[in-house]
């Protein structure tokens, strides 16, 4: 009989139920969309912030001080320490290896460059430029057999290149001149990318041949020819430099298999008060918690463990700016989501209240026929709950669609539908419907059937 009454109520006034249900679905749809976006936005924005590039810098522990002015290191090649390139795949074996988005090793030397070998007769001839050896777009073979695409293209995403990055494969054996008379051949890449200012100064264009020469300690002249495949505009000191594959610069500088600086771009969680504490003061549980959270400090620590003899420093300008803004934006969005949830709850509560108030006559009739307040309340609550589940479910589907639309429009990626959101939304729908109906229901339980039936 109970179920029949409920079913009958739905069948008899479909339009009315539809309206209340629609209000519910709409409200819960908005709640779902707001919740999904808020849950997702942290990760999404953290990825966006990677367009700031590297947030960790790895240097040799025993290094001498870099003498860098305007991006040009005035240290001679033989000063300072170097790190082995062969260790780099280990970066993808740390605990948070999935959060390592990209890295690129850098080896810089001062060189003399010219378009013609006749200009490079002595060690001081030609145009003095900074030669940057790095990975352009580099497939790194990992120990587990997979390949990880990384390089400066990924760590410095603001670099704009006209043409393309140099290829790191050697197309032909290259002749390396040793002194004025001798020479030998090596397998080496022979492409390079010129900074936009350098290209302008030397009137270089795509496809043009260049010669670079690093004045060597043993007074040997090493010429490396290269073809310009791209003109780089970075808005930084790289605009005045010549970029070559790491392998080429290693050979020119006589430092095979070595690099000096490593830029790492890692996806991190903004540092909170806990992360800012001194690692040494942690209890074992706290240490585990710290180690297993992608704070920038814990990722730096893990890299240092994996690459011995290094100093891993956080590029504070990037990391802290990112953390600060991310925290603020997330807080702001949670506030707005809170407002959305509140507004949705109010809307649903109000429509629930309306649907109970409208049924005064029915309540009166039921009471006149001998139903107790409890039975009436239970019946109405069951009806409202059923409506809440249906409305909440439809609203969830609607909200997911809305969130997808929003996510794709703003971030280009739709947020993943999450079970938590579904549970929260259905619980919220049930909660606010019951709450919204409770007040009118309580009043209804006090109704005297007679005046209502008389129409007073």
């Amino acid at each position, binding site marked *: 009989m109970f179920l029949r009454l409920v079913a009958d109520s739905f069948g008899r006034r479909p339009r009315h139920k539809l309206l209340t249900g629609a209000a519910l679905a709409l409200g819960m749809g908005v709640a779902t969309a707001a919740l999904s976006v808020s849950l997702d936005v942290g990760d999404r924005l953290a990825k966006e912030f990677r367009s700031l590039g590297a947030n960790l810098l790895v240097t040799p522990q025993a290094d001498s001080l870099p003498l860098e002015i305007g991006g040009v290191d005035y240290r001679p090649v033989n000063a300072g320490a170097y790190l082995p390139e062969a260790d780099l795949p280990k970066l993808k074996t740390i605990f948070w290896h999935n959060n390592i988005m990209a890295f690129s090793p850098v080896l810089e030397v001062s060189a003399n460059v010219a378009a013609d070998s006749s200009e490079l007769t002595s060690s001081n001839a030609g145009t003095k430029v900074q030669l940057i050896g790095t990975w352009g777009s580099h497939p790194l073979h990992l120990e587990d057999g997979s390949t990880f695409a990384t390089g400066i293209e990924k760590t410095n995403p603001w670099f704009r290149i006209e043409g393309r990055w140099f290829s790191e494969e050697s197309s032909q054996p290259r002749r390396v001149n040793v002194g004025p008379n001798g020479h030998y051949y090596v397998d080496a890449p022979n492409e390079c990318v010129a900074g936009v200012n350098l290209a302008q100064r030397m009137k270089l264009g795509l496809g043009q041949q260049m010669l670079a020469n690093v004045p060597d300690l043993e007074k040997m002249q090493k010429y490396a020819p290269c073809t310009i495949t791209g003109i780089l505009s970075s808005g930084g000191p790289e605009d005045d430099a010549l970029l070559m594959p790491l392998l080429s610069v290693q050979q020119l500088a006589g430092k095979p298999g070595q690099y000096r600086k490593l830029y790492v771009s890692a996806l991190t969680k903004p540092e909170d008060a806990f992360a800012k504490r001194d690692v040494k003061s942690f209890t074992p549980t706290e240490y585990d918690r710290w180690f297993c959270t992608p704070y920038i400090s814990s990722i730096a620590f893990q890299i240092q463990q994996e690459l011995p003899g290094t100093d891993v420093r956080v590029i504070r*300008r990037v990391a802290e700016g990112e953390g600060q803004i991310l925290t603020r934006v997330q807080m702001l969005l949670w506030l707005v989501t809170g407002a959305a949830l509140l507004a949705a709850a109010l809307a649903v509560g109000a429509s629930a209240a309306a649907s109970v108030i409208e049924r005064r006559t029915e309540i009166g009739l039921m009471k006149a026929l001998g139903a107790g307040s409890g039975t009436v309340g239970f019946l109405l609550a069951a009806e409202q709950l059923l409506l809440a589940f249906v409305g909440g479910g439809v609203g969830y589907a609607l909200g997911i669609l809305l969130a997808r639309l929003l996510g794709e429009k703003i971030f280009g990626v739709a947020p993943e539908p999450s079970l938590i959101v579904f549970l929260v939304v259905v619980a919220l729908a049930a909660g606010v419907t019951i709450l919204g109906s409770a007040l009118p229901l309580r009043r209804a339980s006090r109704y005297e059937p007679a005046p209502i039936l008389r129409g007073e």
Partner: protein
Amino acid sequence: MAAPHTTNRAMFWRIIRRLFGANRGRLFVMLLALGSGAAVTAALLNLQIDAKRRLTFEFRAFGPNVIISPKVPVAGDLVATMNDSIMDAIPKSVGPYRVEATSFLYAIATVRGPRGGVPVNAILAGKRGMGIRTASVTMIPPPTDPDAPGYDLVVPGDLPCTLGVQVAKQLDAHVGETISILISGRKRTCKVSSLVETGGPEDSQVTVMLDFVQRLANRLWGISDVEIMVPGTPKQINDYVSTLQKQFPDLDVRPVRQFTEAQAKIYGRISGLLEFTVALVLVLTALCVMAAMTNVAMERKMDVGLMKAIGGSMRRVLRLFLVESALLGLAGGAIGAAAGIFLSIALGKAVFGVAARPRLIVYPVAVALTILVAIISAYPLRRLAAIRPASVFRGEA
């Protein structure tokens, strides 16, 4: 003819007054619905306007985003410099926000730690913020011959310097100790006032006052670059850069693309997200208020029936209810919007640590929106036009 008209009007307002007074509980519910709607609207609008502005300001966390330097970084074997008078020509503000500019002069110096040891080469950075002409330094007119006696700075007490962590490690120097700096035969000591760790070039620099490096390196009035922190939207920053480029055609004025581009991208994303969410909440709030109001309006069946029964035309009855709703909207909106603005001040404080500045435009907008919603909510009363008074009184419907 004037008299009945006046009487009519007087009657109209009297009915309105009675409508308000008739049911205190209902009046309270309506005012609550409208007021809370207006509060949410005003708070969000205010917060949104403020948040977008505040966000552009938050990006200052990334530090300088525009750099002025000589066109060719290296002139011969020397680092190129420019005259520090350009600092006075830099525009000092973008909209309401102050631009912060710092000038630097770099030189390679030999530095020796407090306990002697091997001297190391390090970059000595002279630094001066805009407008802060260090008062603790007595300026001596630059002598023509730098090797003449007395060519030095007179600093009362110790010259303070800031060490990058890497320099400090190499020199084994700590705060409060004295290190010595040597450039082309001229030697000075300074007292370590603080250590910095930035992960950037500052880690391997010794930073002192600009005047000190200018004199020590014999580059009077020379600076290597100016770092400028320009707040504002991406467009404002671009405009600022092009103004500077026009102003200094012989210098290299460039935005630090790493930050300006990411900033523009992130700003676009966040403000899009914010706009969308706020619009969503506003629409929802309107729906919520409408639902509550319509619910109350539908309860007025009896009133409408009675008015029609005693000869009120539907138009007049409807006008009565619309005016009532508009007045309610005004009252609810006025109270709610004021509450909302205070709310947004508190929320702004919670998010950004600084109270959101109330924007006056938000208030009338929020009130107008509330009145509009209230009037639209009364609209379903039109449906009551079809009601026959008799059936209402019989209790049918």
